[in-house]
C-alpha cells in the first residue's frame, strides 16, 4: 500500500478497499444471516426484532456505545500487531497466547507496583504486559529466523502452551488470590487499573482509559509502518524477501522485531483486558480475542486505520449480539456466523463488485 508515500492518508481505491467493500460485505452477511435464521425456523418478525436489537445493542444508547468500544479495544490492539506481522510477511496465529502472557504479566506487575501512585503503577503494568507479549512472540520469531521453523506452526503451539501455563501460574502462591483454591489471580490494585471513563454518567459503564492507549497505538502503528525505517524494512521483507535481502536488509532481525512488536501490541491487548475490564486474570480470560483479531487485521487490510474500523465493527457485532440474544432469544452463535460471512465476503472483493456494481469506480480493463 502506498498511501503514506502518496502524502495523503487514503486514496480512492483504498477507500473502496477499507470501507465500501466491508460495508457491502456486512449487508450481504446480514441478508444471509437472516436466511440462516429462517432456515432454523425463526419467524420473520423475530428476525426483524433481532436486527433491531443488534443495532440497539451496538449503537442505540450510551451504554451500547460503551460496550461496543470496550469490546473493540482489545481487538484493535491485537489486530494492529497482527497487521504489522502480515505486512512483514509473517502469518502470526499466536496473538491469543501473547494476550495471555501480556495480560497475566500486567496483573503480576500491577500487584507488585500497587502501592506506588497510579502514574507509576499503571504505565509499569502496561509495560510489563507489552514486554511479556513481545518476549513470548519473539520465541516464534527467533525460531523462524534461526531455524526456518514456520511461524504458523510455532505460534499455534505457543498458544497451546500458554493456556496450560496460565492454568499453572494461576495456582502459584505469587499470583493466586489468597484463600482461594481455584485458579484465579489476585485483584489488580486501583493504582494499576485503567480508570473507567464514564462512571460519572452511570456507574455501570465499562469504557475505560484503554481507548486512549488504543488510539495512540493506531497512530504509532501507522507511523511505524509507513514513516519509519523499520516499517519500510517490514513492508519490503513482506512484499519481496529476496529483494529486501539483496538491498541489504537483515532478514532475521526483521522477523524477530516484527514478531516482537506484534507480540507487544497483543500483550497490550491482554493488559487492556486484565487492567481495564476484568481486574484479574482467570483461566481462559483471553476469550478468543486473539483469533477474532486475525479476522480484524484481515478485514482492515492490514492498514492501521482499517484495523481500527474493523475492530469497531466487530466490537459492535459482539455488543449487539448480546442484545440480540436478550431481546429476540436468537443464539449469540449467529453473530459468529455473521462475522464469518463478513470475512468471507471481504476476502472476495470481486464478488462484492459483481453483486454491488454501483459504489465502485469503474475499473479499466487491463
Amino acid at each position, binding site marked *: 500500500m*502506498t498511501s*503514506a*508515500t*502518496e*502524502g495523503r492518508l487514503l486514496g480512492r481505491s483504498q477507500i473502496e478497499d477499507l470501507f465500501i467493500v466491508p460495508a457491502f460485505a456486512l449487508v450481504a452477511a446480514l441478508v444471509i444471516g437472516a436466511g440462516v435464521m429462517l432456515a432454523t425456523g425463526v419467524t420473520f418478525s423475530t428476525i426483524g426484532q433481532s436486527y433491531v436489537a443488534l443495532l440497539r445493542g451496538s449503537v442505540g444508547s450510551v451504554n451500547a456505545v460503551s460496550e461496543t468500544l470496550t469490546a473493540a479495544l482489545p481487538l484493535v490492539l491485537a489486530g494492529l500487531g497482527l497487521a504489522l506481522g502480515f505486512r512483514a510477511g509473517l502469518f502470526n496465529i499466536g496473538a491469543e497466547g501473547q494476550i495471555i502472557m501480556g495480560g497475566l504479566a500486567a496483573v503480576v506487575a500491577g500487584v507488585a507496583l500497587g502501592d506506588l501512585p497510579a502514574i507509576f503503577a499503571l504505565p509499569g503494568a502496561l509495560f510489563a504486559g507489552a514486554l511479556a507479549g513481545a518476549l513470548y512472540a519473539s520465541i516464534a520469531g527467533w525460531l523462524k529466523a534461526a531455524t526456518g521453523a514456520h511461524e504458523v506452526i510455532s505460534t499455534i503451539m505457543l498458544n497451546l502452551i500458554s493456556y496450560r501455563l496460565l492454568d499453572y501460574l494461576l495456582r502459584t502462591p505469587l499470583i493466586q488470590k489468597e484463600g482461594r483454591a481455584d485458579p484465579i489471580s489476585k485483584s489488580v490494585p486501583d493504582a494499576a487499573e485503567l480508570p473507567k471513563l464514564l462512571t460519572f454518567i452511570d456507574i455501570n459503564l465499562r469504557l475505560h482509559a484503554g481507548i486512549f492507549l488504543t488510539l495512540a497505538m493506531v497512530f504509532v502503528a501507522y*507511523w511505524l509502518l509507513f*514513516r*519509519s*525505517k*523499520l516499517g*519500510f524494512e517490514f*513492508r*519490503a521483507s513482506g*512484499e*519481496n524477501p*529476496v*529483494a*529486501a*535481502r*539483496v*538491498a*541489504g*536488509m*537483515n532478514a532475521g532481525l526483521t522477523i524477530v522485531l516484527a514478531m516482537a512488536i506484534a507480540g507487544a501490541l497483543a500483550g497490550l491487548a491482554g493488559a487492556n483486558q486484565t487492567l481495564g475490564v476484568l481486574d484479574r486474570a482467570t483461566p481462559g480470560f483471553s476469550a478468543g480475542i486473539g483469533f477474532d483479531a486475525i479476522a480484524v487485521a484481515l478485514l482492515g487490510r492490514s492498514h492501521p486505520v482499517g484495523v481500527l474500523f474493523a475492530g469497531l465493527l466487530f466490537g459492535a457485532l459482539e455488543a449487539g449480539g448480546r442484545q440480540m440474544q436478550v431481546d429476540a432469544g436468537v443464539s449469540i452463535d449467529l453473530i459468529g456466523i455473521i462475522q464469518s460471512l463478513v470475512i468471507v465476503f471481504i476476502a472476495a472483493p470481486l464478488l462484492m463488485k459483481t453483486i454491488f456494481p454501483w459504489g465502485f469506480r469503474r475499473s*479499466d*480493463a*487491463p
Partner: protein
Amino acid sequence: MRVELRNITKRFGPVAANKGVNLTIEPGEVLGLLGENGAGKSTLMNVLCGLYSPSEGEIVIDGNTVEFDGPGDAIRAGIGMVHQHFMLVPVFTVAENVVLGVEPVGRADHLDLATARAEVERLSEDYGLAVDPDAIIETLPVGVQQRVEIIKVLYRAADVLILDEPTAVLTPQEVDEFFQIVRSLCDAGKAIVFITHKLNEILDISDRIAVIRRGEIVGSGDPKKLTRPELAEMMVGHPVDFEVARAPFAPGGVILDVKGLTVLRSDGAVAVDDLSLQVRSGEIVGIAGVQGNGQSALIEALAGLTRPVSGQVLFDGQDITFASPRERHRMGIAHIPEDRQRAGLIGTFSVAENMVLDSYYGPPYAGGASIDWARVHTEAADIAEQFDVRTPSVRSDAAHLSGGNQQKLIVARELSRDTRFVIAGQPTRGLDVGSIAYIHSRLVAARDEGDGLLIVSSELDEIMAVSDRILVMFKGRIVAEYAPHETPVDKATIGLAMAGAAA
C-alpha cells in the same frame, strides 16, 4: 497453409495494443517479427493463437475467415505457439510431455505410451530434432527442452509455428543448431513466425521482416537489403548509436581481488570452483559463459548473499569475504542483480520507494528512526530524470513500468550514488535496443569515472560490446581470458571456450 491477419485492432479499454495490423504468413517462409518490448508483438500473436479475440479485423486461413474461441480452436486450425517460458512437466519424460492433454488412449482409457514414443521419434527424425523420447525433462539442457516444445506443437499438427523469443535461453552454438531446425521446418513447408528484438538473429534467419512499433506495422522488407541500423531505427523510431563512446583504457590499481573462491549451491554441489580473478579500477571485466556454470553463485558471493566455503575476496585490499550486503553497499559496491523482478525490485512499491531500497537507512533520506518521504520523492524524481526512467510519476508502482524502465530504475538506484565497484548480472536481459544502448553507456560512464566493473552476461554480444577484458566461465572456473584491446578476438573463439573446449 497461408494465414492472413487483416486490419487487426486490439483494444484494452481506451488503449489500442494493435492498430490496423495487416500481416501475411506464407508456408515455407520465416517471418521475422521485430519490435521492442511492449510494442505489441505478444498481443498480436496472442490474437493469432486464440488467446485474445480481436476488437476489429479478421484472421483468414487459406481464403476462409476464421474465428477462434480460445487457443484450442487455433491449435485445431494448425497454429501453434512455442512460448518463451517453457510449459513442461519437469519430472515427466519427453514423450509424456508431448502427448500431455491429447494422449493417445487404447481400450478402457489405457494410456498408449508406445504410440506416443513412436510419434515423438518420427517427428524428431523428420525434422532433425534429435530428442530421446524417454529422457526426463529436468535432466535435459535448455536447448533440448526447447526442441521438446517444438515437437509438442508439431505433434498437434501445427502448420504455423509461432516462436516467441526462442533464442533468449540459448548459447551461441545452440542458436546455430536451432536455426538449422527452423530451416528444416521451413523446408517441410511449415510457416514460422520468429518473434525477437535481436537484430542480428532476425537478419540471419528471416525470409521477410516486419517491424512493429506502438502496435502498428511500421515497416517490412527483405533482410538481404536491410541493415542493422535501419532496422533499429524502424524499431525504436529514432537512430540508435550502437558504438558506446568510451575513454581510452587506463586502468588504475586492483580494486577487487578474488583468491581461490569456492562457493557451493544450496544442494551442496560446487558452483564456483577455486576461482581467482582481479578487477582494476577503470576497467570493465566481462564474464561470458553459458548460464548455469556458476556465474550466479559468483555474483551472490561477491554481493554478500552467500558465504563462500573457502577463498578470499579483497576489496581495495580489505578482506570482505564475509561482509554483509549492507557493509558492501556502504563501501561503494553497487550490485545490479541478475533477476530484476525477483531480486532487484519490489513491484508493489512505488518507483520512489524502489529508488531508495538500499539507501533509505541513512542521510539524506533518513535521520533517526523515520524516513523523510518528501525528500525521497524529490530526489527520486531527479534521479529518475537523470537516468531516463520513464514513469508517469515516482509514486507509480514499479510493476507498472516496462522492463527497460524497471532496469533503468535499478541502474539509477545503484549508480546514482558514489560508487567504486559495480557488479552487474545480466544487465540488459530481455530489454529493447534503446534501453540496452542506454544501460551500456551508463556502465561505461561508471568505468570512465574510475569504477571497476564486473559484468556477467550470457549475451556474448553484450560482453564483447562493453568489456575491456573478457573471462570465460565454465563449470565454476575461469577457462579462458581475452584482452580485446590488445588482440582482437572473435565470437566463435569465445563461443568454443564457453562450450568448454578450452578446458
